[in-house]
């Protein structure tokens, strides 16, 4: 079963108000395919039930053990700094100077993190939160596109 099929079923469920799908079948090559989809029903929307929504697909000849995905670990609370324009990324104010920031540096709100050059204009990109630079995702002189993540800041 392809991702696109699973996705179509999900869309169909939502559109048709179906809240559970179970599917089991013998696919080519003796492979057993099992799919279980659980949608949060309207009662969840009303706060009545804690029903976990889960998707499990399994392509295997062995019995599928379907379990709900529970306890998704909390995402690390890093803050993305994204490119607001398209251009060339520079990590330093001049070729012979050191980078504005590197991993582990503390930054303040408004600290310049890098420059993006667009059409020969240098645009300084500033931090919007204070914190520690956790990741630098682009290299000096890389082209960057709109919305591309440049840095991750740990505001902790």
């Amino acid at each position, binding site marked *: 079963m392809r991702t696109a099929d699973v996705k179509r079923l999900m869309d169909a469920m939502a559109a048709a108000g179906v809240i559970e799908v179970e599917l089991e079948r013998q696919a080519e090559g003796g492979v057993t395919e099992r799919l279980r989809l659980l949608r949060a029903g309207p009662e969840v929307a009303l706060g009545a039930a804690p029903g976990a929504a889960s998707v499990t697909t399994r392509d295997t000849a062995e019995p599928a053990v379907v379990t709900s995905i529970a306890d998704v670990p909390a995402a690390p609370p890093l803050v993305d700094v994204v490119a607001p324009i*398209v251009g*060339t990324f520079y990590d330093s104010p001049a070729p012979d100077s050191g980078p504005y920031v590197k991993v582990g540096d503390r930054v303040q709100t408004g600290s310049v993190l890098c420059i993006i050059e*667009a059409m020969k204009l240098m645009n300084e990109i500033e931090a919007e939160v204070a914190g520690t630079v956790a990741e630098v995702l682009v290299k000096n002189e890389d082209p960057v*596109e709109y*919305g*591309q993540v440049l840095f991750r800041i740990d505001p902790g």
Partner: protein
Amino acid sequence: MFKKILIANRGEIALRVLRAARELGVKCVVAYSVPDETSLPVLLADEAICIGPAASAGSYRNVRNLLSAAIVTGAEAVHPGYGFLAENAEFAEKCEEHNLVFIGPRPETIAGIGDKANARRLARAAGVPVTPGSEPLPHLEAAAAFAKEIGYPVILKAAAGGGGRGMRVVQSPTDLERSFVNAQEEARAAFGDPTMYMEKYLEEPRHVEIQVFGDGEGNVVHFFDRDCSIQRRYQKMLEEAPSVLDDGLRAAIAESAVRLASHIRYRGAGTCEYLVDRDGGYFFSEMNTRIQVEHPVTEMVTRVDLVQAQLRLASREPWWLRQEDVRVDGHAIEARINAEDPEKDFRPSPGLVSDVHWPGGPGIRVDSHVYAGYRIPPYYDSLIAKIIAWAPSRAEAIARMERALRETVIEGVATTIPFHLRLLDNAFYRRGAVTTSFIARRMTS
């Protein structure tokens, strides 16, 4: 030929340019907005670069980001498609400033002929007939005076306009004030320029246009005519080539278009639009300085790839076109399939296209960026496919188009296919009695 170009557009025209370029061995960078990340041109691109958010002001109309995208990806040229910045002289100029080839006319041509009042002056200078019309009208009083001079009905148009915006037909003096003010407001909102002018309004004219192609030095060939009369609220719904005209009139109109394009030393692909009245009078109305949505019908009857021609000219291939090589064979019709619900006053119907099946077989061409699983975003034009049918005669092309539309499956969103089928079945349409008021007068449901 270029090694790499940037496509500064989206949807079917981005795909069209990509196909033309790829066949010439040119790599394509597709510039896209955030919601277009999963669009077909992006999926098929050699490189794709996000240039802004959904709103086109921040992306497809964002000069800085588009040029920056071309520069950082090493593109040599920019194809603007149609719409967005395609007829923006400033964008064309900025491309040149940054040593990027703008695949289109010179900036000064766009500015000069793009202004409709100026276009009429240029046409007159080239000996091309225009409808009686005014200079820019500074105020309501000037409009009223001119209308009185040429007689009602008249039509108000925005000098910077297109696509029917800022346009009003005025039947009598009592309607003039309201129409003038509303049209000005619409023009200001759409183009940032409220300048209006007025023309004599022709009743039930045909909309005929001539595809021209110039080398920028005064050499111009034409690729004959298209009929685009089938319009709904000034939006073209179906186009065909050739138009239903006698050959003498066709030749006269085409020659006048070549005169105008040659007069302004036009470069690349352009279209001269005319209104043709019931007595065979023809009047230049405007020139579009871009490749047009309906260019495929011309490609089908002349078998010339106009987008490849744009790329060849822009990359400075020596001029190769000769009028005597251009021949029209058969008849082609294009149905513009929009994601709109004809049952609900053509309300846009964006959303998930859950299944698609395109028609095939002889004489059928499909230009579409839609695939099964594609979500049509609500932010842009509702055009989702162009289905083009070619056959030896107009009657056979109509039969083939009907056959093709009946094969077509688009699930998940409403489309204009049912409307197109009704149109093709209309007896007036079938015998070629088409005018710009056809849908309004002949298709009341």
